[in-house]
């Protein structure tokens, strides 16, 4: 019996260890390579012990100034898309939770359908439209697109969170003379804060890393960091791997830290409503 438990424990540890290696190895490789001298990055046999250097970060700063502009653009777009998606999702989630009608049922179905559409399908027909609206290469186009693609999931998540808030609280506020907007602002949203954070985590991770829309709809002014990294990979005069890994680390670090700090909300978002009923 005791031996069985030991084996099960060992098996679990081994399984977790393997999953960790599988998930973390690429990240560790990127981060370590960004600190290795260029000659040693692809050395055979690989070098695990080396003198760390910041030369690639210096080169990144000197040769790829556009990358830092890209990071700033990513930040603007991520913040904008998150605010827009969270606001719209919270309002829509509230309506879907508290009202019932055929129109709303249809709307929710439509939201799910939107989620199923591959982004590439809408990008190319959108290109002339965005160009006609003079929104090409602006932050706004990315903010709106990223928010649009997440409002569906955000609404469903928020509805699940708001469903768990007793309706009696709405009714009590209503008796005190509060309107719908006041109820949403002062009663529902504070109680649904974990849901808002969960939606925000999803949107931040998506908007920070997204490439396709940025590639199609931006060129210079609103170019995001993943787009600049793609240029480094495709350099026709050769890839400077050290600089590429330094840029990847700089791109990866903020979102990684954000997810580490917010992971419990991410889990809450993923399991919202799982035990309902």
């Amino acid at each position, binding site marked *: 019996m005791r031996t069985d438990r030991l084996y099960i424990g060992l098996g679990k540890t081994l399984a977790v260890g393997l999953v960790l290696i599988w998930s973390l190895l690429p990240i560790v490789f990127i981060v370590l390579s960004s600190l290795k001298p260029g000659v040693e990055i*692809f050395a*055979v046999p690989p070098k695990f012990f080396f003198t760390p250097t910041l030369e690639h970060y210096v080169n990144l700063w000197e040769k790829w100034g556009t990358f830092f502009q890209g990071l700033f653009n990513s930040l*603007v777009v991520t913040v904008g898309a998150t605010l827009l998606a969270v606001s719209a999702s919270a309002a829509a989630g509230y309506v879907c939770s508290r009202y019932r009608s055929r129109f709303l049922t249809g709307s929710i179905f439509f939201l799910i359908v939107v989620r199923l559409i591959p982004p590439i399908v809408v990008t190319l027909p959108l290109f002339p439209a965005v*160009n006609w609206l003079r929104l090409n290469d*602006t932050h706004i186009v990315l903010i709106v697109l990223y928010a649009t693609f997440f409002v569906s999931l955000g609404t469903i998540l928020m509805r699940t969170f708001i469903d768990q808030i007793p309706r009696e609280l709405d009714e009590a506020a209503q008796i005190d003379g509060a309107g719908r907007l006041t109820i949403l602002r002062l009663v529902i949203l504070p109680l649904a804060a974990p849901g808002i954070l969960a939606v925000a985590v999803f949107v931040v991770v998506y908007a920070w890393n997204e490439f396709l829309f940025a590639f199609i709809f931006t060129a210079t002014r609103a170019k995001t960091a993943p787009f600049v990294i*793609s*240029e480094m990979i495709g350099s026709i005069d050769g890839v400077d791997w050290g600089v590429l890994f330094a840029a990847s680390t700089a791109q990866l670090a903020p979102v990684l830290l954000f997810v580490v700090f917010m992971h419990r909300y991410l889990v809450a978002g993923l399991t919202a409503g799982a035990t309902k009923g």
Partner: protein
Amino acid sequence: MSRIDDFRFTRRALLGTALGGAAMLAAPRAFAAGKTLNVLSHKVHQTVLTAGKSGDLLEGWRKANDAEIVWSTFDSNPLQDRLFREASLGETEFNVGFLIDNRPTAQIASLFEPLDDYLAKAPIEDFKDIAPGLVQAMTIQGKLIGIPVRHATQGLFYNEALLEEQGIKAPPTTLEELVEQAKKLTFKSAAGTPVVGMVLASDLAVFPVMFARAFGGDYITKDFKLVPEPEAMEKGLSVMKDMFDAGALPRSYATTSNDDQVTWLQQGRAAFTVLPFARNAQLNNPQQSKFPGRIKAVEFPISSALKGKMPMSAVVESWAMTILKNSRNKDLSWSFLREVSTKRATLGMANSGNGPVRVSTYADPDFAAANPLAAVEAKVLAHARGAFPPFPEAARAQSIFLEEVQLAVLGRKPVKQAVADIRARVQPLLPA
């Protein structure tokens, strides 16, 4: 009461701030200069013109024209994709676009301004000095649509240190010698690194085309003859298969990419590869390469049967500058094209690693002295031509070609059968 308490976060303020912020983000950037020229290019074009060893080659032009240049840079394929999309719109902000020579079909060429009239009214300095083959590649249905600005001509790179280690005194002068040396150079080096004779990417048509040309064959000629000499293609693929069987091409051949060629040569994991001469600086970069100064290049050798009878025709890819037909301010764009095409700018770009399109640049003594490969590159360029001509189904045709080549090299299909299948499958894709 503190000042913070006086602050009211009203809906009106929130809406106003949001709309104001949105307007600021949407507003186009204002430039100090009077005019703006929007250029769609690869990063490398921007670098050699503005931030290479020769410094900012366009400073004078910008001042003279009171113009600012806004560069939008993309990787090669995305760049072409974006360029064609922008050129297909009713109107575009982009003025100048950089175009690869194997892309302009008749339909694509119609998206760009014919430049013959501009050339007649305000000629480019010594236009005949620009390599005629490159100009020809940008002349579609009799109309010049692009001014060549860069070429990448393929050469045979070798690691001199590894050759010496195996007692080989000189690089090969025939294809047969290359195969023999590559087999000899498949060994474990003194440093303990397993070395393969040659590393080639399997996802580019360049390499099988070079091997076929070494026997006098080709893939698709300029006048759309498909595999004009099947026996030459069979010989070329047989040589590659023979090298693979002997381990002189890596076991991972089917997944080897262009970037692997560079890193394998830099790390001493391969003795030979085929790359554009312009990669010389990167291959010998002491910060990346274990063999700085020891990686050299020669012309890709022709087979012994043809040596001295005909020149080896290496593969070349070139870039040209175009003016988008749906753009504004075309005179400013032409002025830019003229400036970039001057002898001064061509030499300046060449000193920063750009493959020069002018014959006279190779004759410049300072350039020749600073660039050890200048002479051989000029010689190879004289007979070089594209891997295949542009046509609408070129991408699919290349994909089929590479699939059959891989099957043949890996021994999954007899070489003769693979060549026959290339002919049968690609023929329907060629223009009538």
